[in-house]
């Protein structure tokens, strides 16, 4: 599939390698840490410490405390968002330094900010500022009403739609893969649908501990404020195409990016379709840039002939012929 047969020319033995496409993907906060992320990254570069120092300066992050937390149980949701963004950007830097940029990039939920930093639409500091502004806007709206989020495993999107049965007070905010999706809305409605899903044969239904109904129309007010803030920023055209999780369009201009930043707050996303767009475009290697391996696990229920690598096996990828990188020369 990837490597061709060795072939002779007059002077040398040439091994041809068919170049497939690579995508760089970014997880959201809430992903499960494996505990060795800091050590792995520090073994590859000094990026994590440097980014932590910049985050301390930009948003007042307690860098040492955040980096010391190996299990991902941070003090609050905002610190959790900063941490995953920092780790994601550090892995992105390692990739770029080894010559691996990716043909596409995409960010899962709030992983969008790291994806945009990777695509050089925004600076690292702008990403931190966007995270802070979005978080506060969403929190302000969500704090006033009893919202909730639930996850359903074992039912398809169509089966979940049938359960919701036209109730406009609840939305499927994200389809992770063919067996797993998130719903959001008022707490009582979410709990009701979770209960019905269980009766219908869902393998697992869980009411999540964070209550802000991200990616739903309940966040319209937060999105409007966020739009105003985005209007004050300088956003650059992406260096690498970014796939929108909202409508799966390939974003190549700053206008696309600015729109997607706002849409990501109050419109439903679909990770299954986002991955499928990249797989259909010829991607056979995904690199998950961030702590843990949540996107790799999600991808087990997404159809296609591809592999997902992450920080745990990044060295293996960079020294293999799956991607064209300068990693071997850099001794990674």
């Amino acid at each position: 599939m990837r490597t061709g047969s060795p072939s002779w020319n007059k002077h040398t033995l040439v091994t041809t390698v068919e170049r497939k496409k690579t995508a760089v993907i970014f997880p959201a906060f809430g992903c499960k840490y494996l505990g060795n992320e800091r050590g792995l990254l520090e073994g590859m570069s000094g990026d994590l410490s440097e980014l932590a120092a910049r985050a301390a300066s930009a948003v007042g992050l307690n860098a040492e405390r955040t980096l010391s937390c190996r299990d991902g149980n941070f003090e609050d949701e905002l610190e959790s968002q900063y941490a995953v963004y920092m780790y994601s950007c550090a892995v992105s830097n390692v990739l770029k330094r080894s010559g691996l940029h990716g043909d596409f990039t995409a960010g899962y939920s709030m992983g969008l900010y790291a994806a945009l930093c990777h695509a050089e639409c925004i600076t690292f500091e702008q990403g931190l500022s966007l995270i802070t502004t979005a978080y506060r806007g969403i929190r302000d709206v969500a704090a006033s009403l009893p919202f909730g989020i639930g996850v359903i495993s074992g039912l398809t999107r169509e089966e979940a739609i049938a359960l919701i049965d036209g109730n406009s007070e609840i939305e499927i905010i994200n389809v992770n893969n063919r067996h797993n999706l998130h719903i959001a809305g008022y707490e009582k409605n979410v709990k009701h649908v979770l209960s019905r899903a269980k009766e219908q044969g869902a393998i697992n239904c869980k009411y999540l501990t964070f209550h802000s109904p991200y990616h739903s129309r309940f966040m319209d007010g937060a999105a409007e404020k966020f739009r105003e803030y985005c209007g004050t920023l300088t956003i650059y055209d992406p260096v690498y195409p970014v796939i929108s999780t909202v409508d799966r369009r390939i974003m190549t201009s700053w206008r696309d990016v600015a729109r997607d930043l706002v849409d990501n707050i109050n419109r439903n996303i679909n990770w299954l379709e986002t991955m499928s767009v990249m797989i259909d475009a010829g991607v056979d290697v995904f690199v998950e840039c961030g702590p843990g391996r949540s996107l790799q696990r999600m991808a087990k229920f997404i159809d296609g002939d591809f592999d997902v690598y992450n920080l745990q096996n990044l060295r293996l990828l960079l020294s293999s012929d799956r991607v064209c990188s300068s990693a071997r020369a850099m001794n990674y």
Partner: protein
Amino acid sequence: MAKIENGTVEEVRRIVYEFFSEECEVSIDELKDDTNVIKDLEGDSLMFLELLEIFKKKYGLNVELKTVGKYVVKHPAETIGAIIGMTMLIIEHENRIAELE
């Protein structure tokens, strides 16, 4: 209804143990039948779904996810031993597992 052959139980047991050892990054020697997948291994439902797909493919099972889900509601399987037991029932009864009490 699939026929349980000699060695099927041992094969299922080996696959389940190897699966959780690899997924949860725990030595296989540390796993026991009474190991709780959720509490002890921090496992989740996606692992169960993945395991189910492995067995569906391996044994060519005709079983719907929703049928298994309804059975799980009545008969939760949280330990490795319980998951092995339920897998054997799924292999034996396929979609008719819903009719079991």
